[in-house]
């Protein structure tokens, strides 16, 4: 939670700098953010490849439960399709690109800004932060109405770090490995799905 606040703080700080013209936007033109994005993706990749434990731990999972990431992705995209019907200003691929952030707001908003512009990037940031916060706050309600898998599905890509404590608390300790596995797979799908929906 604390790290999320710092991240949002940087965004707000940047916005204030922009509004009051403290740092000229021209400094950041010419692809600086794209190179930083490439460096970020390289780091994300190294982090995945470098962790010797993650893959080994997943062998203990039951086969049916490993379908959960797929259900999360399909359910979210179905939700995004419904949202695009109501929000007439946003197209179906745009809503799906925003939904494909799966609460991983930093990466998805950066991607969407790069490919679709600042406006949709801002929506992606706010939408995916909201998803994380709702999961943190509503986990007990989600368990009651939709069963113990629900907070994991709603946490999306964050279930291996920020939302893991609430999942363990309200779904149960036996869901910890599933939650990490789920976060790992959904996290991995974010760059692929977001770039896919941005290219439509």
């Amino acid at each position, binding site marked *: 939670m604390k790290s999320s606040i710092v991240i949002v703080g940087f965004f707000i700080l*940047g916005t204030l700098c922009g509004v009051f013209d403290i740092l000229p936007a021209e400094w950041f033109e010419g692809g600086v953010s794209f190179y930083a994005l490439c460096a970020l993706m390289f780091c994300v*990749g190294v982090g995945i490849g470098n962790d010797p434990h993650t893959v080994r731990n997943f062998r203990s999972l039951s086969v049916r439960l490993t379908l959960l990431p797929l259900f999360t992705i399909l*359910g979210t995209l179905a939700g995004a399709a419904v949202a695009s019907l109501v929000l007439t200003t946003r197209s179906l691929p745009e809503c799906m690109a925003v939904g494909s952030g799966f609460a991983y707001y930093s990466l998805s908003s950066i991607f969407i800004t790069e490919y679709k512009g600042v406006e949709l990037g801002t929506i*992606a940031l706010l939408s995916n932060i909201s998803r994380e916060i709702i999961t943190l706050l509503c986990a007990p309600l989600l368990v009651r*109405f939709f069963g113990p898998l629900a907070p994991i599905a709603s946490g999306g890509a964050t279930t291996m770090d920020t939302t893991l404590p609430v999942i363990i608390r309200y779904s149960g300790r036996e869901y910890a490995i599933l939650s990490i596995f789920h976060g790992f797979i959904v996290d991995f799908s974010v760059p692929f799905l977001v770039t896919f929906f941005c290219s439509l």
Partner: protein
Amino acid sequence: MFTVILIMSIGIMCGYFIRKRDIRGIISGATTALIWLLLFVLGIEVGHNKQVVNSLATLGVEALFIAVVCLCGSCVAAWILWRYIAKRRED
């Protein structure tokens, strides 16, 4: 567009080859710093764009709506999987 995914794949391979050395601390530090930088830059772009600043409230409502509907969709899907698994256990 696929440059980014290619770079991530190269990163995974690099990470795998040097997995004997524990560099997770450095990597997570670098990742965090880059995320800070990128969101700061995103903030500057937002702040500079008067149109976006003026419609920030509308964008926020749209964002919240998309979040809630997507979250409900994923929970319904999780509920379907949960029911399916529970039923199989009873059989």
